[in-house]
């Protein structure tokens, strides 16, 4: 659950830590048993992240920077438990989540990790409030409480007057704010965002970043972006290139 503004740089144990993490993707499917008998070769592999170690303290805002293909999204997915490393370990609150079953990792994300993607991907047929409330349905929160909580979250992102609007009736910035509200509605300890302003114009992007600044006062945030403005809100920037960390330090 959320950790209220601690002094993250010193004494607390890390909220998430990647140790010697490598992630290898295989392009295409393997040759199969008969394929191997026929001498077909294994498909090519790509090492998206290579022997990366990174520790993130509670309350910290960390920016993952780097050009396209540098591995920042993959590292973000590993930290959020969306992927498991090929080698190494990812510890969330001092527990290795790579050993979790898919179901347990899904539950961990629901309870502890909020995710914001570049594209908002809201459910078209549901209102803004229903979209935000969906994770609470999964948590078994009662209908009234869900409505209250979703309304509160949408109020916080400035959409208190758009509760009943469907995604198609909202602007791109408003949709992204709904997505942020959805990511925060379960009060997660960690929020990860992959290019959260990538689909937005400059002005709307600034509004979204202001939102993240507000979010960051209450919890840990990891942002992956190649946009300088977006990364400017980070306490620490970790720069990746070809799947390895080449530099990290204060903003």
């Amino acid at each position, binding site marked *: 659950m959320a950790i209220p503004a601690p002094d993250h740089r010193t004494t607390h144990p890390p909220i998430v830590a990647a140790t010697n993490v490598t992630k290898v993707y295989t392009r295409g499917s393997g040759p199969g048993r008969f394929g191997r008998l026929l001498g077909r070769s294994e498909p090519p592999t790509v090492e998206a992240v290579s022997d990366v170690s990174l520790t993130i303290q509670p309350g910290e805002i960390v920016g993952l920077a780097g050009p396209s293909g540098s591995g920042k999204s993959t590292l973000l997915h590993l930290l959020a438990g969306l992927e498991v490393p090929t080698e190494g370990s990812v510890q969330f609150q001092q527990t290795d989540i790579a050993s979790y079953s898919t179901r347990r990792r899904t539950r961990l994300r629901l309870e502890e990790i*909020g995710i914001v993607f570049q594209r908002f991907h809201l459910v078209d047929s549901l209102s803004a409030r229903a979209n935000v409330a969906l994770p609470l349905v999964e948590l078994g929160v009662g209908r009234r409480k869900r409505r209250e909580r979703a309304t509160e979250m949408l109020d916080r992102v400035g959409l208190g007057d758009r509760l009943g609007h469907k995604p198609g009736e909202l602007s791109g910035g408003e949709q992204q704010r709904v997505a942020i509200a959805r990511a925060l509605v379960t009060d997660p300890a960690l929020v990860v965002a992959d290019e959260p302003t990538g689909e937005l114009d400059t002005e709307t992007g600034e509004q979204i970043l202001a939102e993240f600044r507000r979010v960051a006062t209450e919890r840990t945030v990891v942002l992956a972006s190649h946009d300088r403005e977006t990364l400017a809100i980070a306490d620490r920037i970790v720069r990746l290139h070809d799947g390895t960390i080449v530099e990290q330090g204060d903003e």
Partner: protein
Amino acid sequence: MTLLAGTGVGVLETGGQQFDAADRDLWMTAGETRLTPTGGGGFENTLYDSRNVSAAVSQQEGVRNAVPLAFETVYVTTEDRDEFQTFVGSGTPGGGSSVQVIEGESLDGDPYYAGGTYDGERTNDVLIDQETARSLDVEVGDTVYVGGSHAAARENEMTVVGISPTFGQMLGTPTVVMPLSELHQVTGSTQTEPATFITITLEDDADSEVVQRELQAQYPEYEIRSNQEQLDAVLEEQVLVLAAGFTLVVLAVGTGIALTVNLLGLIIYQQRQAFAVLKAQGISSSLLILTVIGQGLAIGVIGGVLGGVLTPAGVALLNRLTTAVVGFDGLVQFEPRIVGGSVAIAVVIGTIAAAIAGWRISRTPPLEHL
């Protein structure tokens, strides 16, 4: 789907309804009842001496009346035309209550028959259906020329006294209705007085099956059939019509299912990334499937209700079209069971398709769609 099914059911049932509407209890024929190969829709007239046979049947206990009906191919033209058109001439002894007239007057008996002497006064009246009126561009009060040959037609000037859809709908082809004796006269068959069949109406308290059995025993050379048997006998020869009607119904169901599945597949495919995000955020497969099912159910209900609401207008439009093209009124039917079936298909198939789509989405790793 409701329109397609309505057309199919209409094709299958209209014949039956027309037979029912004829309000006859039994039908007497001289064998098979089929369209003549040379005619424009007329039946074979193999029941000869129909007047006397009818009169004898009318004397049978339990029989209220027996009326011969003849359908013959006739040539028809108007004053300002040179060419003749072929129609089915329907001969009935005086119109009767079963011949519905929607404009003008009905036929006034059959005085020309004059007890079999054929020297009574000719009425020279005809009833035509809407399609015949359109084809000939005539209306009530206009003159037409009708005969079994071009030469005979030129000599038989008759007046359109009314518009009647009865036989046109029954036969599915444009008709010209006139007193039976005058049909026999213009087709040169007064000597043999042939009829396609004799329709028999029973007394209210008569047992239809008993009378049918007695008549059959008395007239073994003829076929005595009930309404349904007569319809079956006619339709036996019309396999193509039955097949078309059945195919339309099957097509309607198949199309309805395919469209529902396709539409839902598209809608859910469009939202696969939204569902992938939900999964990434920790939404379980079961809630994901339930969300998709909810959408499928909503789409099914909305589509079904919309289809039901729009069907009557569609039916009316299609019926106007079919009437204009083939002259067959009320072919496309609006039936609650068709609408109900369509709504059921939309809801059930929509829900099942959504469940399958939701299940597939829930099994795909979320990042695959992001």
